[in-house]
């Protein structure tokens, strides 16, 4: 973990890095999907990749900065409602929607972080939860956008004027490109001066202060970065479901994002993506096996939380570290 996850630092060893394998599998996924239930698999995969991006962004806070935000789904909502509201106003291009979503998310993260980060431990968690719920109830009150019922999108967003996202395959690859770009960005950030301070803040905030740095600033900026990336995930998720509702930002969804990060192993970025895929796959597969699938899922989560050795990304221990 020291000095970042170092994906492409050494190109001769880059192919051994789990992230490379993970993304290669995503890139190749549409090929087998072409011979199976194409529409269903692509839709599920797009959903998973978008939530993988959300979990990835949360890992910057939770895994690198030890900030257990219980309101991260609010940013999915900000991204999704950016699509719904801007499309309604006639701005249906991602080149407008994504910058607006990022701007709104940054402001929201800046203001709520400024307050929440004054608290620590359980009080920080509670305060992020409260802010998330405030946004959830705000969305519920938007009667022009269906209130609690939400609103169906007239069409998917355009990309630089093109209708690339209209095809499921186009949307999938755009979502995947966003995930990979975000991964590369965060990997660089974790290995940078900023990332070194953020990792130090996780380990020992007093030590960071004692070398002359104020932990608050680094935590706040990490929250803004994470919120912005999660809002991009929300934009893509809205396009995948072609529907936007307050359900995007329930506190349960925030909890699921935390679970994804813990399941995949905190602090290694690609672990969060893997955790998202595994969580969503379990959620998809288990109901077909047993009626009590939530109990099985619960038991698996407890195992993942308790046993450090059972973290999914430990399966790859020794690979590319």
């Amino acid at each position: 973990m020291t000095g970042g996850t170092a994906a492409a630092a050494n190109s001769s060893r880059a192919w051994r890095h789990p992230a490379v394998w993970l993304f290669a599998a995503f890139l190749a996924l549409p090929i087998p999907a072409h011979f199976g239930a194409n529409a269903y698999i692509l839709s599920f995969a797009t959903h998973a990749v978008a939530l993988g991006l959300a979990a990835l962004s949360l890992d910057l806070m939770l895994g690198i900065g030890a900030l257990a935000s219980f309101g991260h789904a609010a940013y999915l909502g900000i991204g999704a409602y950016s699509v719904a509201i801007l499309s309604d106003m006639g701005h249906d291009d991602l080149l407008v929607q994504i910058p607006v979503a990022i701007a709104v998310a940054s402001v929201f993260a800046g203001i709520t972080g400024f307050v929440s980060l004054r608290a620590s431990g359980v009080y920080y968690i509670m305060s992020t939860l409260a802010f998330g719920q405030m946004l959830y109830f705000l969305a519920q009150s938007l009667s022009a956008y269906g209130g609690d019922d939400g609103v169906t999108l007239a069409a998917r967003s355009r990309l630089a004027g093109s209708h690339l996202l209209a095809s499921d395959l186009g949307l999938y690859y755009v979502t995947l490109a966003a995930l990979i770009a975000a991964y590369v960005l965060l990997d660089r950030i974790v290995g940078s001066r900023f990332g070194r301070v953020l990792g130090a803040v996780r380990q020992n905030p007093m030590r960071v202060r004692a070398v002359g740095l104020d932990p608050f600033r680094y935590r706040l900026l990490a929250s803004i970065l994470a919120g912005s990336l999660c809002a991009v995930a929300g934009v893509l998720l809205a396009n995948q479901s072609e529907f936007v509702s307050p359900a995007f930002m329930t506190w349960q969804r925030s909890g699921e994002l935390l679970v994804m990060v813990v399941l995949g192993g905190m602090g290694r970025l690609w672990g969060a993506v893997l955790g998202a895929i595994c969580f969503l796959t379990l959620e998809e597969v288990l109901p077909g096996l047993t009626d009590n699938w939530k109990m099985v899922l619960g038991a698996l989560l407890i195992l993942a939380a308790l046993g450090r050795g059972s973290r999914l990304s430990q399966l790859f221990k020794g690979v590319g570290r």
Partner: protein
Amino acid sequence: MIAPLLSVEGLTKRFGALLVSDSVTFAVEERELHALIGPNGAGKTTLINQLSGTLPSDAGRILFADEDISHLPLEARVRRGLARSFQITSILPDYTVLENVALAIQARSGSSFRFFGRVGQERALNDEATAVLTRVGLVGRSTARAGTLSHGEKRLLELAIALACRPRLLLLDEPFAGLGQEESQASIALLKELKSDVAIVLVEHDMDAVFSLADRVSVLVNGRIIASGTPDTIRVDPLVRNAYLGDEELA
């Protein structure tokens, strides 16, 4: 007359009804090693916490290099050249020894709001960190994870981190606590060497160390400084003998 580097005037701290620092007044000159001794519970660590900005004071003033720093937080004082070590070792256990020291150098050289360059490959940071580690004799452990170091090595690392801040004044809270005989001797030798570069306030129970190192000694009892002077005058001060030091300890 040149003003002292650190000047403390009437510094007071209460925990509820308990007066822990009772209008403490003393001064530290440039390149002076000023030892702070006193029995357990005298308020030495509280005083260090007040001086470093870890704990706010209820009354009094702290002047450092002619600037009133009484209301500055810890991190702002460090940037002005007032670094500290902790009584209970405070390091970054997941980072390597080199990274622990490089962070302190990064903190005072250039912005830490840089997001893309690989900090692990910054030659200037690593070279200077290596130099500091060489000075404290820990360079052989540069690539070890700090959490895996022995207790003595961790104390040295903490000293290295404080030195990497390039302080004008170093506040050391029991740097020899828990060290073996050999490690203690090595640390004392190191502080003797450091004395020529940097002023030091040393809180220590090891009287051999205190009397061999200190230029001046202040004795803290129940939050008050009852005596202050050269080691020789403190050694024979009847007030100090009565209030604190057993006769045989000073023999």
